[in-house]
């Protein structure tokens, strides 16, 4: 506990800046996420998704994980969103529907979401209320790669096979014949 307090007081000047950045990122990210699930235009939803995913990448930077942040930008913003936009173009008939959802269904889903958040927020505040993150240096990429290729080699190989299977499966499913 003493070491934690010393570390906090030691970099108290940067903690303020981190918190300000966190607030800005969190607000813009949550607004973008809400727009993703409420906007009626599919293309707009995909573009708001870019903002939300970039906010997640910024959170990874704040947490000191550069490599995950870069991967997030490459894979999500670079590939997944482009895939979504291609999907929207290929299924053009449905641009901007989704207006027909009953108000009752909307309000029930909102109740479910708010209740779920309430339960999770209570549990989190109850459990982790005084844990502080002290990030004095970013995680080294060499550590991540060493860990992947030694301790986590079996899951890594499994993920590789999974990606191959998904690739072949997507081709088989979407093939015209």
């Amino acid at each position: 506990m003493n070491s934690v307090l010393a570390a906090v007081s030691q970099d108290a000047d940067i903690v303020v800046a981190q918190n300000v950045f966190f607030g800005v990122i969190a607000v813009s990210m949550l607004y973008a996420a809400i727009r993703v699930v409420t906007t009626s235009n599919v293309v707009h939803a995909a573009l708001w998704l870019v903002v939300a995913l970039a906010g997640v990448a910024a959170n990874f930077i704040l947490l000191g994980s550069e490599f995950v942040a870069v991967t997030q930008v490459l894979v999500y913003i670079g590939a997944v969103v482009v895939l979504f936009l291609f999907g929207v173009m290929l299924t053009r008939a449905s641009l901007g529907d989704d207006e027909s959802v009953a108000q009752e269904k909307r309000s029930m889903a909102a109740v479910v979401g708010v209740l779920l958040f309430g339960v999770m927020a209570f549990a989190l505040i109850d459990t982790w209320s005084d844990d502080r993150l002290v990030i004095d240096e970013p995680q080294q990429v060499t550590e991540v790669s060493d860990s992947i290729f030694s301790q986590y080699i079996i899951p890594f190989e499994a993920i590789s096979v999974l990606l191959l299977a998904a690739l072949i499966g997507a081709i088989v499913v979407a093939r015209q014949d």
Partner: protein
Amino acid sequence: MLLNQFLLLAAALFCIGVYGVLVRKNGMLVLMSVELILNAVNINLVAFGALTDDVGGEVFALFTIAVAAAEVGIGLAIVLLMYRNRRSIDLSEADLMKG
């Protein structure tokens, strides 16, 4: 920074994603909501990794990203197949197996 601010942000993002999955009828928009949910999980993994100063959290976040990429590929293929067969990606019309 507190650990809790990241966890609460991830919880809020997760709940927005759940709302999207429940309320959307367009298959493409449901897949986007699932991406929000998976990203909320990634924030949690990296935050706990930073708390325990363990690299495992980041490694599992990378694995989650890979699984999400596979998931979105397959999901879009299914949505495309559904569009080709029915000229619509309205999920409420996909009730062939309804009892």
